[in-house]
């Protein structure tokens, strides 16, 4: 019992770390492509971010199960790259179908983002990190959820800032991606400040 308690505690710490100090976007730069292209408006950014939280939590857990119970017994660990991608793609497709069938309204706001997620490196990255760091099942849940929330926070904040940026004068060569990256750098700087909290 005590063991499970400490596992849950560890999962919570890992979750917190994944949101703030080890934010997958701001420290390992995963998911940069949609981050720079979809962060123009708060509403779309929130939609994509929400979809990422959902998909990331479930795919890391599914991939953990697949890795532990399929690939390791078969000694095919190196196949994880292919298997993880297939699982992610299949999961996204499945969710798209379910949402389309039961909630057309949600589909309209979330559905267009789902195909974008299959090629989001952050999703695959989270699964690969989970394998390399040898997380247990419970910690994996915390990690997957935390990474998703971290990504969500980063893109939401970025979209908020960029909306204001429309009215400011930016040097020509820096417009678009350039200024986005500089803002992301400042955000990363701020997020590093959270490290002291974890002690």
């Amino acid at each position, binding site marked *: 019992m005590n063991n499970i308690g400490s596992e849950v505690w560890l999962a919570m710490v890992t979750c917190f770390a994944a949101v703030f100090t080890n934010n997958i976007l701001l420290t390992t730069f995963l998911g940069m492509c949609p981050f720079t292209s979809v962060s123009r408006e708060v509403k779309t950014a929130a939609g994509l971010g929400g979809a990422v939280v959902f998909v990331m939590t479930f795919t890391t857990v599914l991939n953990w199960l697949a890795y532990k119970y399929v690939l390791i017994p078969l000694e095919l660990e*190196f196949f994880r790259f292919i298997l993880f991608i297939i699982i992610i793609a299949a999961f996204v497709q499945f969710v798209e179908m379910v949402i389309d069938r039961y909630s057309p309204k949600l589909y309209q706001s979330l559905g267009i983002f789902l195909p974008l997620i299959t090629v989001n490196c952050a999703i695959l990255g989270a699964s690969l990190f989970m394998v390399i760091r040898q997380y247990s099942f419970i910690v994996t849940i915390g990690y997957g959820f935390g990474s998703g929330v971290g990504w969500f926070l980063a893109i939401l904040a970025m979209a908020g800032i960029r909306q204001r940026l429309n009215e400011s004068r930016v040097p020509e060569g820096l417009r678009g991606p350039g200024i986005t990256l500089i803002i992301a750098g400042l955000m990363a700087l701020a997020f590093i400040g959270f490290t002291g909290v974890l002690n």
Partner: protein
Amino acid sequence: MRDKPYFAVIYMFILTAFFSALLIGFSRMTRQRVQMNEQLNFEWAVVQAFPKIQYQNNQQIHQIFTKQFAKDEQIGAYLYQKDGRLQGYAVPFSGKGFWDKIEGVIGIAADKKTITGVSFYEQKETPGLGARIDEDEFRRQFIGKTIEDGPKPIGIVPSAQTLAENQVHAVTGATQTSIRLEALMNQDIRAWLDAVEKKEVAP
């Protein structure tokens, strides 16, 4: 034939089978090497924790490790034996650093006090900053220090402070790494000390 619906399925199947076969063949070829590398990485760290051990190449490390080190499950450490006498303990430690996991080994002499050396086999701290814990300059400080039988067996303190017998200077600027390294090393050394005491009381 290309327009038939089943063609896509057959095509994909053949392609997957072909590439998978190549990959499985290739991984079988390298598998042994990969496993040996992983094992050697740890063995290297253990041997490094005892700087007096002489070796020329990786093969010798492996030989020394298998001959002179034996795992004692009860105390969670490796016993270093040479010429029929206990020379020391190799105590592995691990935990989360600033960015990622830090894993290493601390060598402690047979008196269970004197540190013979410290080595790391896994760390991804900030290059040029936290990662300097892996440099000789930092690691060498530990040699000859003695651990304290208290809640904090070792200490990593800022470089302005004068050192006690169980303390070393931190890498300048790497505060977060030092705090965590100290905590994770102490946790595992403490656990080892407790296990040793327990074993001595009830052999």
